[in-house]
């Protein structure tokens, strides 16, 4: 971003490895745990390199105020926020314009993943909170939010798997960290897909890119998202080892929704008592 010329600038073509030792197509360590917030209908905690984020899902619940209700579908409303201490220089507590834009694009990405038409007039509230960060917090949040939605037993077409892809210090790379985002030639592309259909549901770009480089970057992005997807599925399996409910629910569109919901519901019966919106 800043374009500062530094002494000893890395040269990835020459170095053959990245500042933190990774290969060009290598992700930072990623771990996900679902069901971490007991109050939520679904939740996940994700650590991805230095990034640490929580995701919680509440709903489907009645959309309020009334005029926001859509008789054809549920609204997916994402609220992306960062703690004051999640960035090198203290963030002001009130949400800024970046928070708002990211909330919007994450909601638009998840909307394609959920069978929203099954819950007219409701809102599915997704809250994601970044408690530590180092480039890539929005894709970390999107990846975590997908798991939280699945954990909530909400019928989904697929989960969204997302990562940063782009360019730094002369090479095309996946999952840029802060040092790479600050490279003079940095290109950062938040990239998210539905792995089953390969549909792109998140796509933004900062930086200056040759058209010819895009094709290669997209390839890197798809491959990285597949790896992320495996970790997402494992996180869900780790919680629900005894059945494959979550898996079925996600990949099998033909399963009647009623059954899916019930099978998940058995896991959260005590919660259900307190829930407000019922089909």
């Amino acid at each position, binding site marked *: 971003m800043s374009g500062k010329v530094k002494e000893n600038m890395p040269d990835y073509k020459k170095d053959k490895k990245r500042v933190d030792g990774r290969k060009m197509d290598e992700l930072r360590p990623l771990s996900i745990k679902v069901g971490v917030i007991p109050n939520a209908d679904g939740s996940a905690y994700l650590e991805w390199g230095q990034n640490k984020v929580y995701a919680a899902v509440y709903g489907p619940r009645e959309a309020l105020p009334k005029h926001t209700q859509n008789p054809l579908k549920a609204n997916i409303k994402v609220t992306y926020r960062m703690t004051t201490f999640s960035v090198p220089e203290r963030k002001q507590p009130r949400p800024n314009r970046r928070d708002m834009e990211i909330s919007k694009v994450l909601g638009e990405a998840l909307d394609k993943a959920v069978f929203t038409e099954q819950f007219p007039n409701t809102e599915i509230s997704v809250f994601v909170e970044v408690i530590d960060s180092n480039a890539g917090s929005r894709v970390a949040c999107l990846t975590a939010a997908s798991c939280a939605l699945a954990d909530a037993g909400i019928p989904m077409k697929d989960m969204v798997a997302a990562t940063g892809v782009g360019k730094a210090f002369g090479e095309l790379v996946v999952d840029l960290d802060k040092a790479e985002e600050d490279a003079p030639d940095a290109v950062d592309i938040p990239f998210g897909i539905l792995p089953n259909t390969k549909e792109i549901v998140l796509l933004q770009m*900062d930086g200056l890119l040759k058209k010819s480089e895009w094709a290669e970057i997209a390839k890197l992005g798809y491959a990285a998202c597949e790896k992320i997807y495996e970790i997402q599925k494992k996180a869900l399996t780790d919680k629900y080892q005894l059945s494959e409910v979550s898996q079925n629910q996600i990949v099998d569109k033909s399963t009647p929704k009623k059954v899916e919901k019930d099978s998940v519901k058995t896991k959260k019966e005590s919660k259900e008592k307190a829930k407000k919106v019922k089909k």
Partner: protein
Amino acid sequence: MRTTVLEYDLSKIVELARQGKRLDGRGLEEARDFTLELGMCKNAESSARIRLGETEVIAGIKMGVDKPYPDNPDEGAISCGAELLALAHSEYEAGPPSLDEIEVARVVDRGIRESKAIDFKKLCITEGEACWIAFMDFYAINSSGNLFDAGSIAGLAAFLTAKIPKLDENNKIIKNEYQGKLELKRLPLLTTFVKIGGQIMVDPTYLEEKASEARFSVATTDDGLMSAMQKGPGSFTLEEVNKMIDLGFKIADERRKKLLKEIK
């Protein structure tokens, strides 16, 4: 928000799209023509009024002097804002910035900022002491779709014609006197697409936006680079994205040509 869109129109648009047609008779890859007026706001360091079809946008730049950020003591800055005035559509409301306003402002901003068209170091006045901030704000006057591209064209026109005021010895602006113009190293322009009935089409009208399944914008430059992408609602295949990028370069080139002719 008050809704005035007719369901009838929307389903008609989808039906036509499936046949490769549009309500206003345009081809799918055909952008609306635009007209441009420059310099009508005398209090602004530059101003541009664009009509893209029935969409009308006015952009203006004010140059301000401020202290540089401590992290970049030798750099100035730019700032892009957008207001979807309640004047411009019955569905808009006066009030705090909406998500749509924030998004369109930030995407137009990134298209320009990330292209490195403007050398922030040239906006430095005295290192660590004073620098220029170029505030570009654009306003929807009549909103008939695709404020992204309209804002991008108007914004680029404003940056291209912005004058830099003279300063006195205390770095205070001397009114109505100028020392030169902003310099742009390249000319980024956004091109925006929607998908309706599975068909990609460029430069959507307001109703087409309402009827669309997905939206995508790409900023491209005159030297063959992309400086920003933004997917809105919905999803695209990689092939669709590739096609839109190709078209984006083509349409931006045509628009740039026209823009430069107007500016001379």
